[in-house]
């Protein structure tokens, strides 16, 4: 569905693939280094970068003809954040245990 379908996108696909493997390797290695509370943050940031790479380039969100598609994706992420952030704003701030 990419607009420049004449030129071969295979090189770009291999690049994304290599970046995803590198991200997996870094996630695995960093998990064994003590970063205190930042271990989870680093792991989730790398996971999000990987997910974005897959969504934008492998799932062709970047360069999609249909503009409604981007609206659907963004609103899905928005509702997911409502679910996660509002829930954690409640459970995360309860001081009793």
């Amino acid at each position, binding site marked *: 569905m990419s607009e420049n379908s004449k030129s071969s*996108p295979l090189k770009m696909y291999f690049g994304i693939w290599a970046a995803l493997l590198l991200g997996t390797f870094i996630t695995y290695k960093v*998990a064994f280094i003590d970063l205190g509370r930042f271990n989870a943050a680093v792991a989730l940031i790398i996971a999000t970068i990987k*997910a974005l790479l897959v969504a934008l380039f492998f799932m062709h969100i970047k360069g999609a003809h249909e503009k409604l*598609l981007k609206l659907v994706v963004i609103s899905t992420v928005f509702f997911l954040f409502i679910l996660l952030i509002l*829930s954690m704003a409640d459970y*995360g701030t309860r001081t009793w245990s």
Partner: protein
Amino acid sequence: MPDSTLVGLHHEEEHHPELLHHFADAQQQRDSASLGMWIFLGTEIMFFGGLFCAYLIYRRWYFGDFGAASKSINALLGATNTAVLICSSLTVVFAVWAAQTARRRLLIGSLVITMLLGLTFLGIKGVEYKEKFEEHHVPGPSFSFDHVPIPGHPDQYANPRHAQIFFSLYFIMTGLHALHMIIGLGLFAWLLFMAWKGRFTPEYHTPIEIGGLYWHFVDIVWIYLFPLLYLIDRHP
């Protein structure tokens, strides 16, 4: 008026046989199919989102117990499976490109390799589950997680009841993900059969594209499951 209707009908008959009459052209038909698939994936994201939310709440409550339980899972198998899924995503984009550019052999080869990688993933998953069964880490009457120290607190043991919640989430989340993989393998077997029969052309390859979106989505779910279930509190 009757004349123009006849002309219209005649014009439509010349279209590609897979182009349905309520679409203006093949491009619009493909875009509509992708949009529908993305709406379905949106419901899937919310579906898995509920489980991720449960995970976050319990991880906060039973922080150390979750760390101890996560440490008992084989992280190297999880990392290998991540790499296997990433490779399968690459072969899926190859399949979509091959369908767009009418490369039948590349299309069939990519679909076959994708399915082999999917089966490899499930095989490794099976090895991992077997380890958990042997260690009595499967929630239920025979569950046992006694005298496992909490990471960072060698003098404290994890509460087995809290660790059991981690393993419940582990089996539900990875199990649902594995179920999605099995469904994906079924879809790809059908795509392979259609590709073998030569049904896909540069004008019509919507099933390959839609199946690919599904496969990539399952990959993204795993990208998050891997650090959250396998890699928490690993450092010494």
